[in-house]
């Protein structure tokens, strides 16, 4: 009834090719962003910002990055944790070795270093595909884990091998309280999501998708596989690297390579699969599912006053979480993003489905 595009006429290609061609979508999105920027930092509790929203946003960004590679270009990667680690450690090293460098620049340079590493480990993708490529990217994971554990230079010879960041400021403003951190992360995530969305709608995005759908056919119609695959690795690892730098700087504040281990790579891959392969929106859904559900499950017994011990709760959480993943994959193999678009379709003809 309310969600209907009747009467919204497009008179130019430009208008027809917007991210949200339907006016209601645009209004909703703008309202959501306004709420996220204005209302949430004002209303949400410290715990909610620090322990839920900030990790959710950062992991969403990482999932967006991974989705470009896996969902749009079809190159399976198990090295996401490694690229995050490169971003985080590189940003930290720039900060430590060149004091006075602005925070945003550190983070972007961290992303740039992750790009280089990502492209290097993306080179095998020119020859191998599918599961074999996944195994090759696994090498990135192990190599990076090893490098940050054993090469003392990267941790500035910190005796414990753990690094921690000094108090942060950006553009002369302190980033100390949870609201400041949240806004900083939110701003970066918004910018990069918009960037990613526009990239996948552009020519380069179509090249990636052509490669994903059938690389031989894509090559025949004039798409260079090397260019397309390596740009996908580059863009993906840049965004993932930025997310890694944010994870280290803003969320943890102090970290060790364990924070970016293989488990993190799998976690991100699951986010992308559950959220929806080849969907920027799906990355947010996937991150929300993976970040929020365990926290919610851990808290549910408490809300009902059930005297469950934490280990039982943790085990139940694992079981329920696994069951939910299986359920969603059976109910909708294309991920939560597909469920969302089905819902939109239904809403369009609601309340008169015939």
């Amino acid at each position: 009834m309310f969600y209907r595009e009747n009467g919204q006429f497009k008179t130019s290609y430009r208008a027809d090719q917007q991210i949200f061609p339907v006016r209601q979508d645009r209004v909703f999105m703008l309202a959501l962003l306004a709420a996220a920027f204005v209302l949430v930092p004002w209303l949400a509790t410290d715990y909610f910002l620090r322990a839920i929203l900030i990790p959710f946003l950062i992991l969403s960004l990482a999932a967006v990055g991974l989705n470009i590679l896996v969902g749009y270009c079809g190159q399976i990667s198990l090295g996401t944790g490694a690229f995050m680690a490169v971003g985080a450690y590189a940003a930290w090293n720039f900060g430590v070795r060149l004091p006075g460098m602005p925070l945003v620049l550190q983070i972007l340079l961290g992303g740039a270093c992750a790009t280089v590493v990502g492209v290097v480990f993306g080179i095998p993708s020119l020859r191998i595909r599918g599961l074999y490529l996944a195994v090759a990217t696994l090498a990135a994971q192990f190599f990076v884990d090893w490098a940050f554990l054993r090469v003392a230079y990267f941790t500035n010879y910190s005796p414990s091998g753990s690094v921690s960041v000094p108090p942060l400021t950006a553009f002369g403003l302190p980033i100390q309280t949870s609201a400041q951190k949240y806004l900083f992360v939110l701003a970066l995530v918004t910018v990069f999501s918009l960037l990613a969305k526009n990239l996948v709608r552009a020519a380069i995005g179509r090249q990636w998708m052509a490669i994903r759908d059938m690389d031989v056919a894509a090559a025949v119609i004039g798409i260079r596989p090397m260019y397309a695959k390596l740009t996908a690795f580059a863009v993906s690892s840049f965004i993932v690297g930025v997310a890694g730098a944010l994870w280290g700087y803003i969320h943890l504040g102090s970290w060790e390579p364990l924070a970016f281990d293989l488990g993190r790579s799998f976690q991100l891959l699951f986010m992308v699969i559950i959220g929806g392969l080849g969907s920027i929106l799906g990355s947010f859904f996937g991150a929300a599912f993976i970040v929020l559900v365990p926290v919610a499950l851990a808290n549910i017994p408490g809300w009902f006053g059930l005297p469950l011990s934490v280990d039982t709760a943790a085990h139940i959480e694992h079981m329920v979480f696994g069951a939910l993943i299986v359920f969603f994959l059976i109910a909708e193999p294309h991920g939560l993003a597909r469920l969302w678009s089905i819902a939109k379709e239904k809403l369009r003809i609601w309340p008169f489905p015939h």
Partner: protein
Amino acid sequence: MKRSTLKLAAASLAAAGALGAALPAAAAEQFIPLLAYRTGSFAPLGIPWADGKMDYLKLVNERDGGINGVQIVYEECETAYATDRGVECYERLKTRGGGASGFDTQSTGITFAVTDKAMQDKISVETMGYGLSQSVDGSVFEWNFPLLGTYWTAADVMIQDIAKQEGGMDKLKGKKIALIYHDSPYGKEPIPLLQKRAGKNGFELLLYPVTAPGVEQKSTWLQVRQSRPDYVLLWSAGIMTPTAIREAQATGYPRDKIYAIWWAGSEGDVKDLGAVAKGYKAITIHNSAAHGKVYDDLKKHVYDKGQGTGKSGDSVGTIAHTRGMMISMLQVEAIRAAQEKYGKGKTMTPEQVRWGFENLNLTQERLDQLGFGEIMRPVKTSCANHMGDDWARIVQWDGAKFQVVSDWYQSDKSLLDPMVREAAAKYAKDKNLTPRKCEG
């Protein structure tokens, strides 16, 4: 149309958070958060430890009716030894009940992550026998309390005991000592001290990292077989410990040349190995292998009433459980010390509890009253010294139980103090902190 599920979830979670925050904070209650890992590869260590912490709090509530009448409320949070989950637990529990009394994170990695946050949130971090070794310096680390010992004191004591076996510090020259460690901040902590010792006493230090979680150690022990170190120091925890002992057996390395850190030296680590682990040595923090009156109280007031945390109760009396009780006892005594100053029978704020941690003074008489007379030596903390007094003894597994085989040791302050000061000063510089002035 991006984040509408987020919005929904946000709304529901916010509502839930509000519910959680609105738990009745009655006048005389003191909240103590309990971080624990009862799952994951560290669980064999984490379970008795967490049981010990909770059991002691139950005991204080049951036996004494709380701290001067203030009931202790507590909530456990599962971290699975993961830093990000630990941070989530910290954020969840830090404001409960008017402010958490202190966090025992049970993990070096979580301690690193929480240390910066705790300084801003003004909440104490109690790391008995672990954490940042340089946080002994209370002038820089105002909110950290590595009570009773750190990895540096432990490593120093191990070297002292080795020297004693060899017949003097000068006999260490030319010896080979290997450190087999969990490749994480936890395992790397003792390295600076050992390097310093190696330089001073002339032994060769071999470093063998083991990748977490430590179930794969074949290559490490192959290196041990090749280099034949005279002694092995083992910085392991959880399932890494029994694996290491099995590998030592397979390599033919004598178990009585192995010195394990306290987290690798509890009954749970060696019980199933029995005779295989015979001779295995471990360091204890103070004398945590001993039993005290507190066990009788615990049995009478908690376990006989069916209130015990451990379901079967067989973890009671193990070294890990005792350490858990010590941690809770120090926390409770810090609150009590704060009450002496700021008003008995009142709920203490985190700042007031911090004062209590910094002004702990547990005399032998007081420890006897508490039932810890056998287990600990007197401890006194101060503004400059957040560790108190480090004491340690060596225990050895005889195939059925741990026997105390050494006298009391204390770390060499002439060696440690400059290291602590230097590392703390570096930390202050990195973080742009101005150290407080401590009197005296």
